[in-house]
C-alpha cells in the first residue's frame, strides 16, 4: 500500500510532468481517460481473493458465517465488475482530485486512508457508492452537481463512514435474513418496509459519522447541510439558466416567439416526500439532523475550499463536459443540448460543445424522421417527452423540440451545424454532420430555388405568378392543385426561415455547391460510408427489412454471415451461469467458465489462423491502461448502438468519435462479441451468441444466436465457437 505522502508525491509528479496538464476548456474538451498504472483489482485472481476472505471469516467467531461468505463472494465480484466495466476512471484528473479530497479528510488517519480506493464513475446519475474493502465510487453526475469543494468533501465523508461502519455487509446480512424469514407471516411489503428501515438507519448513521469526519477538517459546516439541497434537486440539470432561442438565431433567421416558452413551471419541493419505502431518509430529515449538529458549533474560520476553488471548478467542469457525453450516450438529446448550452455560456468558443449541440440537433432531426427511435428498453423509454413533464428552464428546450415542425427543425439544424463547421473547420464530426445534413435537407419540401427566391424577388414573383396563372383550369382537381401550389408559393415567401441561408448563398461557395439543387427529392439515406459519416443507413422500407429479419431470427439463422473476415477485435467474452434454484447468478461458476471460454476462443482462433486482438479487462497487466480506455470507448459505442434496439443497424452513433482511432490502431473495424448464458438446476438451457459489428458501417455483419435445450457442454461450446471462426473465415 502506498502511504499518503507517496501518493501525494505521485500525484504531484504527474501534474508536474504534464501528464495531467489542465485542458484548455475555452477551446476544446478531450473526454476523460484512465491513466498510469492499473490497480491491483485488474490483475488479481479474484477466486483467490474470495477464498482468502472466506478463510479469514472462518477463523472468526461469527454467527452469520454462511451469509457473510456469500456476501464476500458477491461483493468481490461486484467490485471487480464495476472497476473493469470501462466506466470507472483510474488515475484521471477527477479521480485524483477525489483522492486529494480524501487526503484532506483523513490527514490524521493514514491507516484508514490507505484502505480506501476512490474512483470517479462515468455515470450521469447523482450518487455515490461505498463497498467493502474501501472501494468508493462517485458518479460524475454528483460531481457535476456539487456547488463547492466542501460539499463534495462531506459526501465523501459520508461514503467513508459507510465503509468504516461496515454498512454494506451488515445491510446484506440483514436483508438476507429478512428475505429468508418464511415463518413470520410477513408480506412482501412488510419485508420491504423493514429492509428500508434498516437502510435508512445506516444512512442516518453515515450522515452523522460522516459529519464527525468532516468536522476534523476545516470545511465550512453549512456546506454539509447544503449538500442535501444538491441531492434534493439532483433530478434537475446541474444549473438552471433560461434557454434563449436567440442562441440558434442569426441575423437572417429569427425563430418565432410562438416557439419560445415564456413561463416555465416552478420546481416541486419533494424534500418531505414519504420515505417509508425508500432506502434513504428524505432530504428534509437528513438536513434537519445535520442542522442540529452544526447549530451549536463554531463555524468561524471554516472554509468552502481547502484544496483550491480553481481546481474544484475545473474538475466540476470536466464532470459537466462528461455529462454532455453521457447524455449523448444515453441518447438523451434534450438534456445533452441543455447541458452543452449551459457550458457554452461559459465557454462560447469550445469546439466540443459545438459538436455536442450539432449532434443533438441532427439526432432530433432524425428522431423527427423516425430514424432515431426509442422503445421500452431504451434508456429514455418514453423517447423525448412533452415539456409539461419537465421542470423549470429545460422545459424551453423540450417545448421548442415539440413545437417546431420537423422540416423547420432540419432547416435550422443545417444552419447551426454548417456555421459551426465553418467556425471549427478541423472538426471531423462537424464536417461529416454538415454533409449529412445536406442529404437530409433533401427531404424538406424546400429546395435551393425556394431559399434563393428572396434574393431574386422579381424572379420569384414571376415564378409565383407563372405557377398560379399559367395553368388553365379544366377540372376540379386542376383547381385544387393550383390552390395548393399558390399556398406553397405564398408560404415560401412569408416563411420566417426563408432567409436563413441568405448570407451563405451569397458568400459561401462550399455551401452553394453542397446544397441540393432540387426540392422534394426523396430522402435516400446511404448505408453509411465510413467514419465521421453520420448519415443514417436505415432506409424508408424499414418495415420490410424488419419483417425479413424477424423471419430469419425465428430460424436462429444469421443476418448476413457471408462476410469473410480474418481479423477482429475480441471484446471480453461473457459467460453467465444462472442458478435457477437460488434465482441468481452463480458468480464463481460463471467466472471459472468464462476463463475456460476465453481460453477456448483463443485456441480455436489460433487454430484457424484467425487474428484476434483481445480487449478484455480480465486479461490485462498493470501497464495496459490504453486497453482499458479502448474497452471503455467500445462499451460506450455498443451501449448507444443497442440502446433498446437490437436491430439498430445503421443508426448513427453520436457519442464516440474516438472509434476511428481505435480501428486504425488495431487494424480492423470488426468487433467480435461472444457470450454464453446457461441455466443450471431444473430445465437446462444454453444461449449462445456470437456477433460481429462493423464499426465503419454500424452494421451487425455476422450473428449466430441460438438456444439449446441442453446443458452447456464442452462440445456445444467448442462447436459453436469453431463454427463462428470457420464461417467468418470461409463464409457460410
Amino acid at each position: 500500500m502506498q502511504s499518503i505522502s507517496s501518493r501525494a508525491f505521485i500525484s504531484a509528479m504527474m501534474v508536474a510532468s504534464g501528464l495531467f496538464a489542465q485542458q484548455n476548456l475555452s477551446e476544446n474538451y478531450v473526454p476523460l481517460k484512465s491513466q498510469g498504472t492499473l490497480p491491483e483489482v485488474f490483475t488479481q485472481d479474484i477466486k483467490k481473493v474470495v477464498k482468502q476472505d472466506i478463510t479469514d471469516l472462518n477463523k472468526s467467531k461469527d454467527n452469520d458465517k454462511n451469509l457473510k461468505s456469500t456476501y464476500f463472494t458477491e461483493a468481490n465480484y461486484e467490485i471487480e465488475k464495476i472497476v473493469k466495466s470501462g466506466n470507472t476512471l483510474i488515475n484521471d484528473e477527477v479521480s485524483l482530485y477525489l483522492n486529494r479530497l480524501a487526503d484532506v479528510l483523513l490527514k490524521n488517519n493514514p491507516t484508514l486512508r490507505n484502505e480506501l480506493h476512490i474512483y470517479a464513475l462515468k455515470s450521469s446519475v447523482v450518487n455515490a457508492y461505498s463497498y467493502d474493502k474501501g472501494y468508493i465510487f462517485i458518479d460524475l453526475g454528483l460531481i457535476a452537481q456539487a456547488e463547492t469543494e466542501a460539499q463534495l468533501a462531506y459526501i465523501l465523508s459520508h461514503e467513508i463512514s459507510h465503509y468504516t461502519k461496515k454498512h454494506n455487509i451488515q445491510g446484506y446480512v440483514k436483508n438476507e435474513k429478512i428475505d429468508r424469514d418464511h415463518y413470520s407471516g410477513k408480506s412482501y411489503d412488510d419485508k420491504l418496509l423493514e429492509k428500508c428501515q434498516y437502510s435508512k438507519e445506516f444512512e442516518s448513521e453515515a450522515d452523522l459519522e460522516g459529519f464527525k469526519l468532516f468536522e476534523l477538517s476545516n470545511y465550512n459546516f453549512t456546506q454539509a447541510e447544503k449538500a442535501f439541497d444538491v441531492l434534493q434537486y439532483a433530478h434537475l440539470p446541474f444549473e438552471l439558466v433560461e434557454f434563449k432561442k436567440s442562441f440558434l438565431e442569426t441575423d437572417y433567421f429569427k425563430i418565432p416567439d410562438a416557439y419560445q416558452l415564456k413561463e416555465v413551471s416552478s420546481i416541486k419541493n419533494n424534500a418531505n416526500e414519504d420515505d417509508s419505502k425508500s432506502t434513504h431518509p428524505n432530504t428534509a430529515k437528513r438536513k434537519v439532523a445535520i442542522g442540529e449538529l452544526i447549530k451549536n458549533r463554531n463555524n468561524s474560520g471554516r472554509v468552502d475550499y481547502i484544496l483550491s476553488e480553481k481546481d474544484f471548478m475545473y474538475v466540476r467542469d470536466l464532470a459537466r463536459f462528461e455529462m454532455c457525453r453521457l447524455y449523448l450516450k444515453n441518447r438523451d438529446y434534450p438534456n445533452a443540448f441543455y447541458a452543452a448550452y449551459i457550458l457554452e455560456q461559459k465557454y462560447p468558443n469550445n469546439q466540443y460543445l459545438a459538436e455536442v449541440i450539432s449532434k443533438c440537433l441532427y439526432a432530433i432531426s432524425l428522431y423527427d424522421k423516425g430514424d432515431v427511435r426509442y422503445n421500452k428498453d431504451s434508456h429514455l423509454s418514453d423517447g423525448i417527452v412533452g415539456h409539461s413533464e419537465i421542470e423549470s428552464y429545460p422545459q424551453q428546450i423540450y417545448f421548442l423540440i415539440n413545437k417546431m415542425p420537423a422540416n423547420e427543425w432540419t432547416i435550422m439544424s443545417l444552419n447551426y451545424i454548417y456555421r459551426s463547421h465553418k467556425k471549427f473547420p478541423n472538426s471531423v464530426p462537424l464536417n461529416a454532420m454538415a454533409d449529412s445534413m445536406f442529404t437530409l435537407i433533401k427531404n424538406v419540401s424546400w429546395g435551393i430555388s425556394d431559399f434563393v427566391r428572396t434574393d431574386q424577388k422579381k424572379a420569384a414573383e414571376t415564378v409565383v405568378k407563372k405557377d398560379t396563372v399559367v395553368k388553365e383550369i379544366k377540372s376540379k382537381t386542376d383547381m385544387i392543385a393550383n390552390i395548393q401550389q399558390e399556398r406553397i408559393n405564398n408560404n415560401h415567401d412569408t416563411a420566417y426561415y426563408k432567409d436563413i441561408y441568405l448570407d451563405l448563398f451569397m458568400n459561401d461557395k462550399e455551401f452553394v455547391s453542397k446544397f441540393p439543387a432540387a426540392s422534394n427529392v426523396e430522402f435516400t439515406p446511404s448505408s453509411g460510408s465510413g467514419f465521421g459519416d453520420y448519415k443514417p443507413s436505415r432506409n424508408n422500407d424499414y418495415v420490410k427489412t424488419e419483417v425479413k429479419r424477424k423471419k430469419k431470427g425465428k430460424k436462429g439463422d444469421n443476418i448476413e454471415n457471408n462476410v469473410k473476415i480474418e481479423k477482429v477485435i475480441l471484446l471480453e467474452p461473457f459467460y453467465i451461469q444462472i442458478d435457477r434454484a437460488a434465482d441468481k447468478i452463480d458468480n464463481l461458476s460463471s467466472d471459472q467458465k468464462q476463463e475456460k471460454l476465453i481460453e477456448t476462443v483463443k485456441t480455436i482462433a489460433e487454430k484457424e489462423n484467425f487474428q484476434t486482438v483481445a480487449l478484455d479487462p480480465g486479461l490485462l497487466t498493470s501497464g495496459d491502461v490504453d486497453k482499458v480506455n479502448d474497452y471503455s470507448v467500445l462499451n460506450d459505442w455498443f451501449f448507444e448502438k443497442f440502446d433498446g434496439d437490437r436491430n439498430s443497424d445503421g443508426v448513427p452513433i453520436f457519442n464516440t468519435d474516438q472509434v476511428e482511432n481505435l480501428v486504425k490502431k488495431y487494424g480492423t473495424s470488426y468487433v467480435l462479441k461472444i457470450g454464453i448464458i446457461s441455466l443450471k438446476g431444473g430445465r437446462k438451457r444454453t444461449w449462445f451468441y456470437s456477433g460481429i459489428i462493423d464499426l465503419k458501417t454500424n452494421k451487425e455483419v455476422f450473428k449466430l444466436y441460438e438456444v439449446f435445450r441442453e446443458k452447456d457442454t464442452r462440445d456445444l461450446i467448442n462447436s459453436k465457437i469453431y463454427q463462428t471462426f470457420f464461417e467468418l473465415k470461409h463464409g457460410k
Partner: protein
Amino acid sequence: MFSFRASKSIFLLLCFFAALSLPSQTAGYLGKRFITGYGFYTSPSVINTNGQGQRMTEKMKIAYSGHFALNYIHELYGEMAWRRRLVIGVSARYYKTSFSQELEIRYAQDAGSSSTFNYLSSTTHGTYYIRGMNYSVYLKLYSTRYLSPWGRYFLIGPVFKTHTATYSPDRLGLTAVYKPIPQGPAPDFGATTQRGISFDVMAGFGRNRILYDRLSVDYGYNCHLFGLFSPLKDFLFTNLTDKNYIAVTSRRRSYSANRFNFFIKIGYLF
C-alpha cells in the same frame, strides 16, 4: 483394362480423395472431420421369443413365458463430415441369431400319384441358425443449430443385407397338428446352408456427443423401413411350405433383427 474389382477400388479412392481435397466448406468438430469406431445395436424381442413352443401372446395378449430376449448387432463404421450439416458414413454390421418358432406350414405329401399331393397342416420344431451382415451407406442430416459431426441428426441410407442360414436335419422337423404324418418322404427344408440377400432403407434419429475433443459418442435409434412392413407382406402373401421355410423365415428373422434398434456408438474423431 481394369477388372471390375479394380475399377471399383479406383472409383472409391477417387471419391475419397475428392472429398478430402475439394473445398467443401465443411466445418467438422474443431476441424476434425472423420470418425471411425464401433457401434452396438440392440432391440428387445417381446413376441415369440422363447422358441420352445410357447407363444408369449397366447393369453390376454400379454407375454407370460418370461423369456425376454434382446437382439444384438455389432457394427464397424466410418464417417466423414461432408458439409456443415451433413455427414456421410459407411458401416458394416454383423449379427448372429437363431430361429426356433413353431410355425404352421403346408407340407406336401406324395399321395402315390405323381400328379396328386396331399397337403397336410404341420408345425415345425427345432432350431436353425442365422448369421447376417448389413452393408450401408448413409447420410446424417444435422439440425440447423448443430455442426456436423456434433449434434442431433436424422439418418437415412440404403442397406444391403446378406444372411446365411444353416440347419441340421437332425434338429429341424415337422409335427403334425391334426394327425400323425404318415410315412412318406421327409420334409424337404432345402440345402443345409442357405444364403439370402435383401434390401432395405435405414432411417433414424440420433445425437452425437464429443468428449475430450477426440471421442465420439453417438446414440439414438433407427429402423429399417421395409422391415417395418415385412410382417404385413408375410401375412398377406406368403404361404409357408417346407421348401421355402428356411428362406422365408430367415429373411423374416433378418428383418425383425434390424427392424428397430437402439444404438450406441463409440468412435475416434480425427
